[in-house]
């Protein structure tokens, strides 16, 4: 039976696969997720949905504490930093077992340095036998500048890996806790290579994580089972099922009906109902992101500071938060969210004052009616649930100060590209933080990013930019904080954009679910979670 199934799965690549009969009485946690993962190799993926689906299987060298941003030991129990921060020596955990029995793979050895080398070299060296398998897109490895940072990775013995960097860089320890740095089994990779089906490596994953992979059926479900030998915090349920349910209304209905225990991303419109339902519980946390309305400072009249300030006053900010975010966002006045260090709360927010905005426009020599374009997000983003609705409201507000805004949008890839080229007059965009460092936000208004880059305001201010570059080179957090606080003041006065909001991330689950911890990165983890 098992053999027959495996043959079938091998033939179909990702067909349903089952390892031993699952006892029906076992404790199952069903998570209503948003969509199918791109693959089961995190390094090749780019969406939170995919990472969530990969994470149960894998561990990394370092790990974010569950529900936090602090970095602690993972598959490496400790590390030494030498050579002025340019050499990192990782001491690996002993006695860690890879999942056995998945896709016919029976590990003959424990986890060791070869697996670490395999996992990084695959993404790094284009001569690696797995480099081109399954398309070879390693976006995060490149986005986090790993090729530029890494000099060498070598093993000195089976349980010691030495990583040499081209320049000192402490945030790399946090990067190594990110999903793209997940550690795979080199032995499993060899087995599949010998069998001539390396592509299965990215479809049927083997790792060391709290759950092992059981089956995946595209657009329907992913099934995991508990890894009883896990070295860290163990799974409390026997089976973990991802019920793929793209429609948020259906997710909530299933949650209410008890068909799933946990649902990702409830609709803001449904929050009230969830709060009222005693069978459900709702938790929230502010997201590591910002949404803004960028003015193209290279195009008149937005080259004038006064005009940009006037536009900041023309929009009914509170109404946007209320009607677009429906309670799932907090009004933003700075580029970084308040949870990030160096947030300057003394910066005043612009108040809604259409009369004054009108007067300022007049004083700046702008004749009304003024025709502008307003680009709105074609897709839902974590920082903006409904760009279209927001644009319609902004359009109505602008009409009141004599500005006719034409709503424009493009397909998402096109939208970003054109905005980076500066084709817009004004447009919505935003940012989601990667690693919890303020620079990861502030660079968005720097001069380097203004030339065809991510600074879609094209604003290049020397005062701001000097501080930005200086802060990056400093290691003292107090000094950096001071510079960042000043930068926020400059930016508020210069108003290259209008800050809109930081989102609030909600998670809905059934009341019987215990032990869940919300992650500031918006990821979902189910070890230590139980169903009462």
């Amino acid at each position, binding site marked *: 039976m098992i053999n027959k199934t495996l043959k079938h799965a091998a033939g179909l690549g990702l067909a349903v696969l089952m390892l031993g009969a699952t006892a029906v009485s076992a404790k199952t946690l069903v998570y209503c997720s948003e969509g199918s993962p791109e693959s089961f190799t995190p390094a090749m993926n780019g969406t939170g949905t995919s990472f969530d689906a990969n994470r149960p299987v894998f561990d990394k060298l370092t790990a974010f504490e569950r529900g936090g941003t602090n970095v602690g030991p993972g598959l490496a129990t400790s590390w030494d930093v030498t050579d002025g921060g340019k050499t990192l020596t990782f001491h690996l955990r002993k006695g860690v077992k890879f999942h056995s029995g998945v896709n016919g793979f029976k590990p003959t050895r424990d986890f060791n340095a070869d697996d670490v080398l395999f996992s990084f070299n695959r993404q790094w060296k284009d001569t690696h036998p797995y480099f081109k398998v399954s398309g*070879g897109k390693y976006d995060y490895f490149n986005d986090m500048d790993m090729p530029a940072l890494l000099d060498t990775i070598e093993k000195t013995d089976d349980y010691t890996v030495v990583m040499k960097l081209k320049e000192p860089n402490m945030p790399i320890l946090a990067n190594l806790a990110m999903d793209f740095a997940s550690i795979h089994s080199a032995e499993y990779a060899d087995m599949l290579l010998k069998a001539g089906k390396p592509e299965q490596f990215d479809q049927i994953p083997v790792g060391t994580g709290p759950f092992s992979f059981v089956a995946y059926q595209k657009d329907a479900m992913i099934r995991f089972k508990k890894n009883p030998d896990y070295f860290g915090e163990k799974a409390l349920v026997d089976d973990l099922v991802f019920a793929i349910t793209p429609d948020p209304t259906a997710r909530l209905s299933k949650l209410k009906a008890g068909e799933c225990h946990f649902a990702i991303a409830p609709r803001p419109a449904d929050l009230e109902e969830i709060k009222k339902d005693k069978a459900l519980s709702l938790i929230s946390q502010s997201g590591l992101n910002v949404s803004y309305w960028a003015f193209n400072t290279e195009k008149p009249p937005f080259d004038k500071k006064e005009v940009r300030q006037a536009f900041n006053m023309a929009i009914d900010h509170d109404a946007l938060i209320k009607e677009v975010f429906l309670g799932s966002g907090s009004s933003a006045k700075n580029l970084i969210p308040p949870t990030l260090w160096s947030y300057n709360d003394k910066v005043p927010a612009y108040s809604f004052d259409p009369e004054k905005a009108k007067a300022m426009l007049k004083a700046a020599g702008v004749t009304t009616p003024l025709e502008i374009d307003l680009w709105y997000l074609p897709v839902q983003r974590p920082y903006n649930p409904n760009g279209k609705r927001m644009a319609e409201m902004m359009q109505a507000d602008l009409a009141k100060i004599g500005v006719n805004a034409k709503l424009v949008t493009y397909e998402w890839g096109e939208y970003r590209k054109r905005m980076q080229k500066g084709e817009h007059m004004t447009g919505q965009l935003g940012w989601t933080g990667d690693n919890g460092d303020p620079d990861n936000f502030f660079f968005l208004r720097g001069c380097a990013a203004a030339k065809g880059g991510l600074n879609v305001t094209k604003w290049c201010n020397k005062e701001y930019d000097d501080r930005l570059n200086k802060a990056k080179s400093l290691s003292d957090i107090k000094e950096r904080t001071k510079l960042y606080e000043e930068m926020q003041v400059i930016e508020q006065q210069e108003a290259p954009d209008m800050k809109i909001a930081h989102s609030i991330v909600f998670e809905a689950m059934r009341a019987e679910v215990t032990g869940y911890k919300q992650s500031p990165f918006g990821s979902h983890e189910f070890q230590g979670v139980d169903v009462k």
Partner: protein
Amino acid sequence: MIKFILRRLFLTLPTFVALMFVTFIAIRLVPGDPVEVRTGEHGISPERLAYFRHELGLDQPVWKQFLDYVWKLLHGDFGVSLSSNVKVLTEFLTLFPATLELAFAGMLFAVVLGVPAGVIAAVKRGSWFDHTLMGAAVAGFSMPIFWWGLLLIMLVSEGWGLTPVSGRIDMIKYYFDAPTGFMLIDSLLSDQKGAFSSTLHHLVLPMIVLGTVPLAVIARMTRSSMLEVLSEDYVRTARAKGLSEFRVITLHALRNALIPVVTVIGLQVGGLLAGAVLTETIFSWPGVGKWLIDSIGRRDYPILQGGILLISFLVILINLFIDVLYGAINPRIRHGA
């Protein structure tokens, strides 16, 4: 008969080649790059973009890409999905049973209810049943099914708690091997008690939503075709011979009245697939309709190309099958075609 089928198949060949060519060009005209579309706020560096476009062969002239594609297709290779790196054919075969199961259920629902309803309405022409049915039928085929689906979920699943909201089976309770991909069959093959009935429960609402329009069309068609047949001479003769009304209707009238109905059923198949797109979207049903729509968003060229080809090929095959069936019911047609 075989000659007829082969001739028809041969006639579809140019359509098929043209279809291949048109979809190939069309999806490349959709703005947006398949590599760029998957990146987030970070975007992608021009060097890496160029590298991937090269790896995927997207930097080649379109005619060359097309010839490559046809060459591979002739070897049975539909290419690999750009977003999941899985073979297009593999993904299609994983998802298609779900669509087929849904479409089949929808059609069954429409035929099983539609034909008898149409017959009764015709026999009792002018009765309240006839009027009600025909009123309902107009509403049925005027139904915006995306709205109908939402409404039914709210009423039947949410309000009355009669059916599950979405999905194909209760995943908390049941899990079994799925050798066929047809959940109804797989749940029967599994020895888990209640799995089959859970699958049926999950199928009911999507089936009704998808079957509504064909049901209305079939009921109307059966009625009018039946009315026509009932006034024919041979039916009158049969009556005159003293056959019971039931036998007249079932044995003589219905058989002939069904000919146009079969055609209509065939015509509904294309519409059924289009309806499946919406139904699958509403019910989170893991089928090929949703898969195609999603791939347009992702600019997943190989999936769109392969998916449209495969589905169109099926539509053509089904139409051929209907023609053959038509010939079987009505031997006069065969020579004419």
